[in-house]
């Protein structure tokens, strides 16, 4: 009830989750046979969580960007190409990939934000396709439709005499790399949202004209958040690239750089809960686990996903993070229903 009790509950919840995240590879090792495989799945979950959270940061200003996959491609390709061609360290190129993605995002943000709502979504969607096809046609730079492969390039870390190579052997090293990088990015996004900047984003999404009239530089803030989100998305692309070690611009819907990735991120966000910072985290984790679990019925996956989305939108508009509240309401409703029935049967 008191603020202190709330804070304690929150902190302990955070600590428990953090411990779970940190201990996950060891928990997996102890409980499942295919620990490296599941660790690999969690690496992908980490990457997608960052992308979904970045998308949500843009959504805080009221706009839905469907260019996520495109900016991920820019970050991933830039990181890979710089490492392959110039031999730069993956650590540096991941950062540079993010920065390039942010630069492109920042430059395009102004014309893009001249339109709002569905028009903005469509322009960003098309941008994603542009990046995909550019990656396919600019074969002098990107390797063309064939894609890029760079198995010999892995991030390495040397602390004193200890040398850690982030290989795919057990995936554990890479898992921790993703946890640290994504953790830092999420922390930044979280602090932004909870600070004045976040309040400004919220004001823009709620009433942009009023926000302008009280002195908010709406366009400036939108460009800023878009740039930041593009940076994180590009970084996620770099993390993805050096984990999978192969990138391709194939225009099949399952390609990670295809428009469907953006749609999936949007779904993760909506299903998890758009109004909570934890929504994308919950949505991405659960959905991607569910997807992996239901591998044998992958043909039906879009159907399953769509059904879940519809159910959530109908019955839990606040998303999965609102489940405690909803379950209480449902419980009360059920109790009321049973009581009424008991009364009428008497």
């Amino acid at each position, binding site marked *: *009830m008191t603020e202190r*009790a*709330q804070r304690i*509950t929150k902190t302990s*919840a955070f600590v*428990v*989750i953090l411990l779970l995240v940190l201990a996950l590879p060891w*928990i*997996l*090792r*102890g*409980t*499942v*046979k*295919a*620990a*490296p*495989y*599941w660790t*690999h*799945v969690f690496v*992908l979950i980490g990457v997608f969580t960052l992308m979904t959270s970045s998308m949500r940061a843009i959504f805080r200003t009221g706009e839905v960007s469907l260019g996520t996959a495109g900016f991920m491609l820019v970050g991933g390709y830039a990181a890979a190409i710089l490492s392959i061609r110039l031999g730069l360290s993956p650590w540096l190129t991941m950062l540079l990939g993010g920065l390039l993605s942010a630069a492109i995002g920042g430059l395009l943000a102004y014309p893009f934000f001249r339109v709002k709502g569905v028009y903005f979504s469509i322009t960003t969607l098309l941008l994603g396709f542009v990046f995909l096809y550019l990656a*396919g046609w600019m*074969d002098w730079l990107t*390797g*063309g*439709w*064939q*894609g890029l*492969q760079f*198995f010999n390039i892995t991030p390495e870390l040397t602390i004193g005499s200890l040398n850690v190579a982030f290989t*795919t*052997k057990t995936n554990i090293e890479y898992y921790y790399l993703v946890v640290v990088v994504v953790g830092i990015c999420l922390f930044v996004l979280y602090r932004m949202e909870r600070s004045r900047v976040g309040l400004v984003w919220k004001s823009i999404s709620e009433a942009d004209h009023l926000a302008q009239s009280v002195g908010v530089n709406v366009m400036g803030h939108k460009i800023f958040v878009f740039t930041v989100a593009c940076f994180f998305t590009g970084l996620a692309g770099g993390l*993805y690239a050096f*984990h*999978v*070690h*192969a*990138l*391709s611009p*194939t*225009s*099949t*819907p*399952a*390609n*990670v750089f295809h428009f469907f990735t953006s749609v999936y991120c949007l779904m993760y966000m909506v299903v998890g809960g758009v109004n909570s910072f934890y929504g994308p985290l*919950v949505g991405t*984790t*659960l959905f991607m*686990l569910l997807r*992996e*679990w239901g*591998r044998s019925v*992958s*043909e039906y996956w879009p159907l399953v996903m769509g059904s879940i989305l519809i159910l959530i939108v109908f019955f839990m508009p606040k998303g999965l993070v609102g489940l*405690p*509240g909803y*379950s*209480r309401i449902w419980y009360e409703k059920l109790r009321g229903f049973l009581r009424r029935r008991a009364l009428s049967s008497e």
Partner: protein
Amino acid sequence: MKKRSLAILLALMLVLGLGSVWMVACGEDEETTTTAAPTTTAGPTTTGGGPQTTAAPTTATTAAGETKELVIGGIAFLTGPGAAGGMAAKTGWELAAAKINDAGGLKIGNDTYMVKLLVEDDAMSVDQASTAAQKLIQQDGATFIMGPLVDAFKNVIYPICAQNGVMLADVDTKNASAAIKYEGNTDVSPDRPLHARFHWANDEMMPYLFDYLQENYPDAKKIAVCGVTEACTVALYDWLGTTLPARGLERVGALEQMAPDTADYVPPVTRLLSAKPDAILVAVSTPQTWGQVTKAARDLGFNGPVMCSTHMGVEFALMIAEGAKDVFGAGIAMADLAGLPPAMQEAHEAYVAKGYPAQDEIADVYLVGYNGLWVLLQAIEKAQSVDPQEVYDFYQTLTNPGDLQTLWGDGAYVGGLQSTGVNAVLCEPYWINGVGADGVQKNLKQVFIDVP
């Protein structure tokens, strides 16, 4: 009230966290295998006991030995626009596995191994291909992996297989063998242990196509080359620059590359025809490319032969280029099954019995998949071992003609030492199919692809 909801949230998160671990554990139990898995199991499999009992019947002990499971994984694109091809390959694998299992499984030593085939979707996406391979190997305990069908993904899968001591069985066609040098070549090589090939590569097939061309179209000297946009296509084009003149043919015009999702084939084919070729070669083809190029060429008034070195039933090409003549390429024409070996007749009967049309345009793909797994299982049985390393080593010793059987005919053996540096390429008979001047689809010629 708020405190309580927070407590509920906390509890929920814990439940979700544990639930996900449980889900993971369950997903694993679902397909428990009794095969010696390459990975270690740290925890006892006591989580969720239900599904385990279903696996019990296969562990029945017989007097002669034990009946065990041999898990073989397959990776193909089962969803997306190319799904038809992936599903056909999957069907082929299933038929081959069923054939062996129906005959009582593989007899290895005293034990009998039933083949358990698990096919995963790579969805034509590298991370999905990688995920699929890791799942098959680590969770399902697959010790042999077939596929993926897309060349580029083989490089993604191979490191995972090698790290886990799993044999990668390349059962479908290869766009370019190790003899064609380019960055990202995916063929077997001495520095790729546990990687074996069970089918020919396009450049190994091409000489036989040229033989056929020279026999039947002696006036055709100038050949224009096109293919799907890929690094190997460029390398094949360069290679043809020296190969064709050596046989008295000529490569004319520039290479025309077509992206997999090209909609209009008239512009590239117009450029091809501007070099005034006598014949067109589709060096690397998607299911559509051959047909689309043929159609565009005929529409533009070109009447010379159009050939394709990617294996494909000519029915598929003619479905697009209706009524075209003088079209031939590597593949089996299902319309002309009569003269083919009994093993293939039998395979096709099983295929039709599953409800597929007898003259399926995509049948060629399933046959290649079927053949690949069948040969792999022969190698395993001959090696008298289910250990991937032992099978791989033994496969390399099957160098005498007739050591292995194929759907296309007898006399198959393992070769390739000279051209790839490792003796791990299947040399087998195959067919050239097509339509001649009479417009009838048939298997034109049997050839034997002998990889030195």
